[in-house]
């Protein structure tokens, strides 16, 4: 946790050098996160936002069985030097798009934002994410018939925004 999130870069790099150690960092982070997540969940019951893994978050927003779609465009940078501010644009060409959810797969809490649009609003948005580390950004679109679609895009982060 502290190794990953307080900007102790030397230690972090050492740990991340071996894949085994990097798994351990993940475990530590998860363990450390249990407490604040519980507090959040208690006072803030919006489904999916307190989830600490991608499958959990997808399940909570009802998108566990979404279909991959080429009609969702995700624009972002290939490499971000600053994980505290990663610009991202999402454009959905799926007919009757009702809502767009943005998830950063490897963030401590993957679900970053969920936006729902009234009729007349174009199903597109530009926003700015924090990313703890290099990760795929996954976008889930819900259409009027209740079906969900997703697309994803990899963004590499040189300096994590977890502690920013």
């Amino acid at each position, binding site marked *: 946790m*502290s190794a990953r*999130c*307080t900007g102790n870069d030397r230690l972090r790099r050492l740990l991340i050098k071996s894949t085994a150690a990097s798994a351990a960092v993940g475990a530590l982070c998860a363990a450390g*996160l249990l407490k*604040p997540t519980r507090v*959040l969940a208690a*006072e*803030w019951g*919006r489904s999916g*936002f307190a989830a600490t893994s991608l499958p959990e978050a997808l399940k909570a927003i009802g998108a566990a069985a979404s279909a991959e779609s080429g009609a969702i465009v995700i624009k972002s940078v290939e490499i971000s030097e600053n994980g*505290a*501010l*990663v610009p991202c*644009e999402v454009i959905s060409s799926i007919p009757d798009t009702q809502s767009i959810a943005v998830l*950063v797969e490897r*963030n*401590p*809490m993957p*679900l*970053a*934002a*969920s*936006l*729902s*649009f*009234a009729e*007349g*609003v*174009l199903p*597109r*948005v*530009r*926003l*700015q*994410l*924090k*990313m703890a580390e290099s990760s795929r950004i996954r976008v889930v679109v819900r259409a009027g018939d209740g079906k969900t679609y997703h697309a994803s895009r990899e963004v590499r982060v040189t300096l994590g*925004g*977890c*502690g*920013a």
Partner: protein
Amino acid sequence: MPEPIKIRAVQQGESTEIRILLQHPMETGLRRDQASGQKIPAHFITTFTVSAHGKVLINAQLNTSIARNPLFVFQSKGLQPGDRVRVAWSDNRGEQRADEATVAAA
């Protein structure tokens, strides 16, 4: 008192571009104070809405993983120059802020 929301709405042909800058620390709850080593508690916008003509256009639910002082850009049809656009947010501490702007001609 929370910082004002900066809103710019500009008509672009048939649609209106709405740029919203939410001035907020967006603390994740994971960061530590450099001096004391104490964790800085989470403080972030959980919800914001964009409305016009008394109708909600966009409802946004956010997590801690949205950047500090984030910028959002939307596009909507059905607005005219002169229309008022209202943005309102509330955060996990119960603080709130609402501001309005007028749609400008391009």
